[in-house]
């Protein structure tokens, strides 16, 4: 026999669960400005190869180092998808990492074969877009709206 207090208590419990899930998820979701930061640094890393000073100098290593350090910092602070420690995150990391690596290798190879520096700039733009546009999408599953479950 279901009484009104029983049902009200169950509703409260379901609302509580939804709220906690939203809080727990929001805490580990990456803020948009962090995606922007990573996007810009990844663009700089690739695009710097388009200028003569970028090849075989500390400039490109500095750009790469800045990207890696920023990624580590963001990952530690928020645990974005590739670092969130879930099966989903590992898949995102594997697919995304392979895709980005392929873009970089293809751009460098094309550039070395005379395609021109625009290839590297385009690759940088792809990296930027990949992080800024697709990054938040990879965390869509993390968020849950807080609303009544009744």
């Amino acid at each position: 026999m279901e009484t009104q207090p029983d049902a009200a208590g169950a509703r409260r419990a379901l609302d509580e669960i939804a709220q906690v899930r939203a809080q727990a998820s929001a805490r580990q979701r990456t803020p948009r400005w962090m995606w922007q930061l990573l996007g810009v640094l990844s663009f700089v890393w690739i695009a710097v190869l388009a200028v003569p000073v970028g090849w075989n100098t500390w400039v490109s290593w500095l750009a790469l180092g800045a990207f890696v350090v920023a990624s580590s910092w963001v990952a530690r602070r928020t645990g974005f998808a590739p670092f969130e420690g879930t099966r989903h995150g590992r898949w995102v990391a594997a697919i995304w990492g392979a895709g980005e690596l392929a873009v970089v290798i293809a751009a460098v190879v094309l550039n070395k074969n005379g395609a021109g520096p625009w290839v590297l700039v385009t690759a940088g733009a792809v990296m930027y877009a990949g992080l800024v546009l697709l990054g938040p999408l990879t965390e869509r599953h993390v968020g849950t709206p807080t609303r009544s479950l009744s």
Partner: protein
Amino acid sequence: MTGTEGVAATGDSTFDPVIHPPHRLRICAALEPWEEYEFSALREVVGVSDSVLSKQLAILMDARYVAQRRATREGRQRVSLRLTDEGRRAFAGHVLALRNIVGRFDAAVANRTDPGVGPGAEAIGAESGESLSLHSAPG
């Protein structure tokens, strides 16, 4: 879409008295979407002190619903917590049981034809035969 849609709704619908107290319900709800969650982050989400969280976790660990892993990272000892498979099943069953209670009550109210008795009635006769106290004491 509701906030508990992500909770797997497979298996039995079993009201679980180990999970239901508010703090433990919050702990399970916070852990459920993740493989692991850090102790300090969990404390913030659940909104309790270290000692209260430890006490509630101990009860969940005794029931084999939660497991912990200690690791040293950046020179500091971190405790990560996760719901075990058993814990996930129990939590999913508990959520399903809560939904069933609400669903049965709403259905009974909707089907009521007697305008003289509104939803404020003391009890709605349902087929379940289970009567659950949902006014649990904290922790």
